[in-house]
């Protein structure tokens, strides 16, 4: 159905308090009155970040933002703007925000409704290979502003005030990190962008760089100015060739435009950026391992303190932030800390990018304000679970995160709430799990990854995760025994508290959280030798029921000739021969085979 207008209504807390829901009713009534209901599409959005001007609605095409609305204004908007095509200047807000640029283009799509785009503001909008596209959207203006109006200390203060926290996982206050590094006296300092994204299924950093490489550069240059560094490095895994190509191109363009190199924007500030390629070790996302890797050594974490802000790359004070954190910086500077800290929750400001994957209708890359609930992400943005299946859990934080069951769906995503729920923010992986997944198997999957990727340096992580993996493997093979759960917990808690780096300190999370939230599944595996999701091959058996009409289809597909029976008579499966491949189950057209 072709519609002529798309109206986005801000359904954020601020606007709700200011009565936006009454306006919605008024708008519906007004549209109905003019028989426009079919021609205007209405979307609800999450907070649009203009709370002080609420209630706010956006009319597209044209990207007209109306603010401070009262009920009567709705009538005017419908009659003047929607019918006559004359936007109402009196009600329009003239703002040139850096964030949420996608609303100009995508303001009409449900998928984006609850999203708010700061880090990804240009992704999917501009041509990433064109610095002109970036410049046209106020690119590098934050840098210019910093170089014109702000001292390095002002910049640090602004970042501090914004409440921005590291988006790489641990959520350390970015401003504090900047402050520590800025305060160090040294003849040389470094700025590093951590683009070593290693979580399975995570692609936030890759997409951000591929879609808008210049914002990362701009953030880093600002960081260099703030802490007094002249050199920046982007550590990115070699498995990201396109992102690397785009970064290389962006760096070249920035140099040609006097935005990198000597005398940036005709000032006496000098700064340049180099790309360093990682070989793809997960642990090299840990900052001290990453630094060692740049130094040409084996990527293994070292104990902290000293922190990189004191002694980092080549022993020099080093400011290391993740891609998404850097991408936030130009917006923090341009739209200001005061605005930035209105977004999000009390302790977690701004937005967070997630790679939404798994059993969800709309898989994708999303950016939502902190405080958005898991339910909103899974159902409003993700579109819920496909094929009418039941939601079982959502796993946040990548391989080191926890699995949260339905009871936790109303948990707001922010650092503290997720931690309290038994998971972590992590770098932003989010995997939705439905009833067809076995939680023991899921835990085993993640642990297989982390124990493989352990750097091998510290004992708890190197040896402990392997033992946990062995116990889990045993359980999924039907060889679990009493005490296994307790041993998993004992090892898991010890590994979390004893390991050298964040990898080990979080590796047991998937196991501990599934034990906590889905203990009955573990017990079924161990004591009843049963996998309710039918995933663990050793714990399922196929049997033919009386529904069998003896068509012989299953017999023909069975690779081990485990099925016998004469035509038109009920067939049977020889359990000793059955390898549980499931071919018969898939083939049977009469639902005559059960999987238990």
């Amino acid at each position, binding site marked *: 159905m072709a519609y002529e207008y798309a109206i986005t209504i801000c359904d954020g807390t601020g606007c709700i308090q200011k009565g936006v829901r009454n306006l919605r009713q008024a708008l519906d009534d007004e549209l109905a009155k003019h028989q426009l209901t079919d021609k205007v599409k209405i979307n609800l959005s999450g907070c649009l970040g203009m709370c002080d001007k609420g209630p706010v609605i956006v009319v597209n095409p044209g990207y007209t933002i109306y603010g401070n609305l009262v009920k009567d204004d709705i009538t005017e908007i419908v009659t003047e703007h929607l019918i006559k095509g004359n936007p109402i200047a009196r009600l329009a807000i003239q703002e040139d925000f850096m964030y949420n640029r996608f609303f100009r283009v995508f303001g009409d799509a449900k998928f984006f409704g609850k999203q708010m785009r700061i880090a990804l503001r240009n992704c999917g909008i501009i041509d990433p290979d064109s610095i002109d596209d970036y410049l046209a959207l106020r690119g590098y203006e934050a840098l210019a502003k910093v170089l014109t109006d702000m001292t390095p200390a002002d910049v640090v203060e602004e970042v501090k005030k914004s409440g921005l926290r590291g988006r790489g996982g641990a959520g350390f206050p970015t401003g504090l990190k900047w402050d520590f590094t800025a305060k160090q006296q040294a003849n040389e300092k470094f700025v590093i962008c951590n683009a070593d994204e290693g979580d399975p299924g995570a692609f936030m950093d890759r997409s951000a760089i591929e879609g808008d490489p210049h914002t990362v550069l701009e953030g880093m240059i600002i960081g260099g100015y703030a802490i007094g560094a002249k050199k920046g490095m982007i550590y990115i895994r070699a498995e990201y060739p396109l992102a690397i190509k785009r970064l290389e191109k962006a760096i070249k363009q920035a140099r040609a435009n006097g935005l990198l190199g000597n005398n940036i924007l005709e000032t006496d500030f000098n700064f340049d950026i180099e790309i360093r390629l990682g070989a793809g*070790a997960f*642990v090299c996302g840990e900052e001290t391992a990453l630094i060692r890797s740049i130094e040409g050594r*084996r990527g*293994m974490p*070292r*104990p902290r*303190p000293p922190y990189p802000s004191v002694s980092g790359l080549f022993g020099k004070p080093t400011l290391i932030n993740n891609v998404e954190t850097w991408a936030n910086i130009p917006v923090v500077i341009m739209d200001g800390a005061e605005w930035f800290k209105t977004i999000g929750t009390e302790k977690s400001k701004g937005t967070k990018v997630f790679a939404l994957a798994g059993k969800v209708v709309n898989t994708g890359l999303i950016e939502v304000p902190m405080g958005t609930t898991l339910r909103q992400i899974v159902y409003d943005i993700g579109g819920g679970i496909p094929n009418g299946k039941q939601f079982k859990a959502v796993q946040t934080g990548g391989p080191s995160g926890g699995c949260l069951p339905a009871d936790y769906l109303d948990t707001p995503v922010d650092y503290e709430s997720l931690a309290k729920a038994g998971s972590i923010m992590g770098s932003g992986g989010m995997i939705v799990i439905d009833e067809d997944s076995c939680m023991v198997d899921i835990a085993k999957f993640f642990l297989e990854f982390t*124990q*493989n*990727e*352990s*750097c*091998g*340096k*510290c*004992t*708890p*992580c*190197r*040896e*402990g*995760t*392997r*033992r946990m993996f*062995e*116990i889990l493997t045993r359980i999924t093979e039907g060889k679990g025994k009493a005490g296994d759960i307790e*041993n998993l917990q*004992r*090892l898991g808690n*010890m590994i*979390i*508290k*004893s*390991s*050298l780096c964040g990898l080990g*300190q979080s590796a047991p999370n998937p196991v501990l959280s599934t034990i906590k939230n889905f203990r009955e599944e573990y017990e079924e595996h161990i004591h009843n030798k049963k996998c309710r999701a039918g995933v663990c091959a050793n714990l399922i058996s196929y049997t033919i029921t009386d529904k069998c009409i003896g068509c012989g289809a299953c017999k023909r597909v069975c690779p081990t000739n485990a099925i016998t029976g004469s035509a038109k008579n009920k067939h049977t499966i020889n359990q000793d021969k059955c390898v549980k491949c499931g071919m018969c189950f898939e083939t049977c057209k009469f639902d005559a085979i059960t999987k238990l």
Partner: protein
Amino acid sequence: MDDKISIKINGKKYKVAGDQTIMHAADACGYHIPRLCYHPELSIEGACRVCIVQVEGVKNYVASCCYPVADGMKIHTNTAEIRRARRDIVELLLDNHPEDCHTCERDGNCELQRLAYAMGIRHRHFEGVKKHYEKDLSSPSVIRDPNKCILCGRCVRICSEIQGINALGQAFRGFETIVMPAYNKPFAESVCSTCGQCINVCPTAAFTEKNYTQELFEKLNDTDIIKIAQVAPSVRAAIGEAFELPPGRNMQGELAASLRKLGFNYVFDTQFSADLTIMEEASEFLERLQSGGKLPMITSCSSAWMKCMEQFHPDLIENVSTCKSPMSMGGAMIKTYFADKIGIDPKKILSVAVMCCTAKKYEAARPELQVNGMAATDIVITTREAAWMIKSAGLDFVNMKPEEFDAPLALSSGAGTIFGVTGGVMEAAIRTAYELFTGETLLDIEIESIRGFEGLKEGKLTMDGKEIRVAVAHGLGNAHKVLDTVRKEPDRYHFIEIMGCPGGCIGGGGQPYAGSNSVPLDKKALAARAQALYTSDRQKTIRRSHENPEIQRLYREFLGRPLSEKAHELLHTHYAPKKPVGITTKNKKAVIGK
């Protein structure tokens, strides 16, 4: 105002210095926190996590080896919770370790064994698969057994940080992590200098020397051959520690007696051949000095240093003295001079060297050191192997009645004695060179500037108005440094002593393992061993090599004079650049010898 801070350990208040780690502070307060990967001479690894403690207000346990104390800190070292975590960590190490203590080289002095005992591990909770690797037996000196490795990283650190060789590194990830030479090539093909420091610091038996004790026991029973031993200076200064004596007891007489009881027909002193080395080396130095030869001259008695030099510093080959080491000179004399003397076919002689060193095993096998087509030294055993043989043969070493070495390769000057400690060769050489050059006897013979454990020591003396500048380096890492100086300032030194091991031979890779109350390469133990040798020097009336009457006799009867043709044939050698796996070509011009 003092800069002490207040902390609490296990509820008790202490005032400690603020600029230290929890581990050191706790040590000072009398709490010895269990530890494994920590070593005082090496960088902090923080890897084993055995030294974890609880700090109030910190969510996770902290590794006390790397976590600094702070004012008001409340530390708990011994709660039930932390004890259990530590115990579990050690169990995890055991679970992936061969449980073959009874048949293990390190049974009885294994740090993991001690730790397991101290943790009170009586049951196993987490057993699973164990790693399995082939032993690397390729090296003539060091055996690598990755199965026993617990990945504390001490070997990797000593090899790079102290020795500057970087022969070892971790490879692969997680459970598959393994310490190996570059590309997992056989150790023999690697840059390993065979110094054996990895053995010294290894808490388990992941590194051990190539053991010749069984072979030697067999040969000692062979009545058809003449069995001759020679004993290096620093062996006597350290072997007592293997019998739980405090460091620094000189066990020369007990050693000579024990070796005879083991079946050796003659027991000689390598200190005698050290005097011989000085005669040749001092003469060579003077020849270079007087005839415009290549300077600075660098000593050549440390076999690990020789291999290191041929690999990493081939451009300086011409600077290195052509003198063989005392061991090889001694071996050469045994199979020529002494064989003649007693009128026996040298092929019937078994020449055994008891050394503080693993690299000597490698040296003994060098073909260019052969004498008349025979190996000068047939078997080299380390101090540890000697101690084991003595124990195994049931000899009461500690209460043994001391005996003398056998003539004519017995008598040594004080100069030969101090060979075993860093700076000793230089000091000995100066005592003789001075007299050979000036015709006057050097009276002030204890040269303090080149004594002690500074990594790099410099000294100078005036000989007939000519200033002679010398340098002393010990530990191969310091060797690299002094050679870089030589490249930059070729005229800075005239004579350089380099010893491969920290402290010189007394810190050799074949010395006794640290006891339960000590650490490997403990500075105090090294100092005590050095003192034993210096005391012995001081107690001697003959303290200059050229005054040794047996040496004088050797030249009179056999060699003629230093640097004679015969001396060149038997006591000097040559070197060739080596390029084993793992060498990266630097922009150094290699000067290939003639």
